[in-house]
């Protein structure tokens, strides 16, 4: 949903600040002023951070990298929802045109027992790597593969495998799951199952005879 409004907008931010994993965190309030509606959510935070540094206040730490929706690094909870209000949209692909002028925006880290906060909005998601290491791969030695076209795979099966493999492993599902229903890390168990299913799809791409 596009929020109609001026080309430059003002917001009130409530941002989670936490020095490190050992200390308690709290919300801090900041004004975000003159934010272009075409700026991304992370660019809005960049602008706020530049202002903080100018006042000799430490900038808000947040994870981000590719800023094109594929690396899975960005990980904010925006107004209570991981990655904010838009469906299938990472934080970095969320634009300020979706937020009305004058709105208060609450920004938190992913909240999950499996994802301890490292600083401000940054969490430790190494649990996701451990799941992959526990078996989320296809075992094949480098250089031992047969010709790629020797085993045809039907297009529908390949497309399905691609759908499953497109997960960016951002962990939003864990943050969402634990928030609503499973306070004790059950989100990760769910994710593990999902990852295994995805792994099976990927392995399935190597199964014979579907075409």
């Amino acid at each position: 949903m596009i929020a109609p409004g001026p080309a430059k907008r003002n917001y009130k931010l409530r941002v989670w600040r936490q020095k490190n994993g050992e200390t308690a965190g709290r919300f801090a309030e900041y004004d975000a002023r003159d934010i272009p509606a075409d700026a991304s959510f992370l660019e809005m935070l960049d602008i706020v951070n530049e202002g903080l540094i100018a006042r000799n206040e430490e900038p808000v730490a947040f994870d981000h990298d590719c800023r094109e929706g594929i690396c899975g690094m960005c990980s904010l909870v925006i107004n209570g929802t991981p990655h904010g209000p838009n469906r299938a949209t990472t934080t970095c692909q969320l634009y300020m045109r979706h937020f009305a002028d004058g709105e208060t925006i609450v920004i938190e880290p992913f909240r999950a027992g499996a994802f301890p906060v490292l600083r401000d909005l940054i969490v430790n998601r190494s649990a996701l790597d451990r799941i992959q290491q526990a078996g989320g791969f296809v075992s094949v030695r480098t250089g031992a593969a047969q010709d790629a076209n020797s085993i045809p795979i039907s297009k529908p099966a390949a497309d399905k495998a691609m759908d499953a493999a497109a997960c960016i492993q951002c962990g939003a599902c864990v943050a969402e799951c634990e928030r609503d229903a499973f306070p004790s890390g059950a989100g990760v168990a769910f994710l593990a199952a999902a990852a295994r299913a995805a792994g099976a799809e990927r392995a399935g791409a190597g199964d014979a005879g579907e075409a």
Partner: protein
Amino acid sequence: MTNGLDAHIPEGPIEKKWDQHKFESKLINPANRRKYEIIIVGSGLAGASAAATLGELGYRVKCFCYQDSPRRAHSIAAQGGINAAKNYQNDGDSVQRLFYDTVKGGDFRSREANVYRLAQVSAGIIDQCVAQGVPFAREYGGLLANRSFGGAQVSRTFYARGQTGQQLLLGAYGALCKQIAEGNVEMYPRTEMLELVVVDGHAKGIVARNMVSGEISSHAADTVVLATGGYGNVFYLSTNAKGCNVTATYRAYKKGAYFANPCYTQIHPTCIPVSGEYQSKLTLMSESLRNDGRVWAPKMAGDKRAPGQIPEGERDYYLERKYPSFGNLAPRDISSRAAKQVCDEGRGVGETGLGVYLDFADAISRLGEHTIRERYGNLFDMYHKITNEDAYKLPMRIFPAVHYTMGGLWVDYNLMSNLPGLHVLGEANFSDHGANRLGASALMQGLADGYFVLPGTIGNYLATQTGKRPKADAPEFKKAEEDVRNRTSRLLGIKGKRTVDHFHRELGLLMWDKCGMTRNDAGLREALKRAPQLREEFWEDVNVLGSGEELNQSLEKAGRVADFLEFGELMCYDALNRRESCGGHFREEFQTADGEAKRNDEEYAYVAAWECVGDGPPQLHKEPLEFEAVHLATRSYK
């Protein structure tokens, strides 16, 4: 000027070199491999595939990345595809043709023997990835599908929707995860290499910073492998991830590794145009879109009509007009310059006038929206999210942006630097793409280097190094740690008025202006004057808050920008020295009557490898390029 560069290219006919070299290369017996430790910095396609393969062979590997997981390296963002000489389409492809296309695409500034090997191993990459479960696109008959990319007249590009890099990286990441689980690879995420350690003239380790705790640690090994990607972020705005940086390769340069052809940068023609000063990065729209999209601009300068209001006869499909045999699939350097030319003539579109159209109307009426959605759906979605425009209804607006860097650390045929013990893979080295990389060849090179080349050549070095691994508390490590700590406290102690991003933006503008899509003598000299001033201002007036003993993103950025500020100067030296135009390096003084790049093979058919000499200007070393298998020719796509 000296010529101490021996690329160690094997003797014999080009098609036999790699097989012969593999046979003659030294092997390490399986029981002895566990006695060798290998450090790999970077976990993208090159780093992850090398770490997985070397771990599988039985070496003890430590792999470092700055992201929170190896799977987030920027290879993940590669969209369009990966080339391989499979000739599955029976359209005349072969190893020889992929080799030729790549040498020509690079404007005859790459090393023949390396490129031939790349084409040879390309087919095996596809086999490997399919076996790993990479869900490449398929035909209804179940066989692998292909599409075309720029600079080729065959369909040899394999793809997984618009997310090919992601799928290939997940394959390599899976293989890496297996080796981590088996204990062969020790993974260090959120850890940044800040110094290369050289002991007795050999690269034997690194100093790294834990980005969560701030802890500085030393790691010793028998050899160090850098797979740390390119330096496009020297321009501030690029299609690279925000964290991509030159620090690892630049630190190696400062320790004696030569940096080759730093001025060769690739400006990609199809990116979403800049919309304002707040912009933090640029987003690529895959070259694959040019399979079905037609590039055009209004014929008339200053034409502000909406695209739909401009009749067919008043549109200039300039790529089809200028390059009829390759049309919209002209290579990237040529397409980018053509777009710039159109905009310079006042025919650019969009609010800024810095844009041209990429139009799918014809393809949609020919194939239907469904087919276009199936081929490029995620790209159209991304375009919509960013611009709030529907490219199924309106043509996309696109403009060139910095995308890839062909230059990198100099390596020989074994992928080893002139600095013994240092190996360099993927975008971080200079070896295969000459002055311009063809689309879908970066993924090919990253995986070729990691899966097949380095595992075949690394023994040549390791076999000479038995028992020579230093301890991580050797004086050289202590000294390097001290250098890192000093640099950190210096950055934190300045307490100036301007932010790191402020300096980065200013450097980016300077580089884009003087060392971007086109360059000239006067502009480069100006940049060489301005860059040191900017660096001085940085070290006097940057404001980096917080401490070194905590998670501190400003500090991370400051260290990277400090290196970019020096590195930008090196690029300008190289661009100034190369008094010719070739590929992505376009010197305005050297062009043909119709505005094409004018090479000077007599004087510049060499790799320019730069040596760091204290604080003075860098020293040039030349590796002459000899062309035996292909004839030097004027590159034409007409």
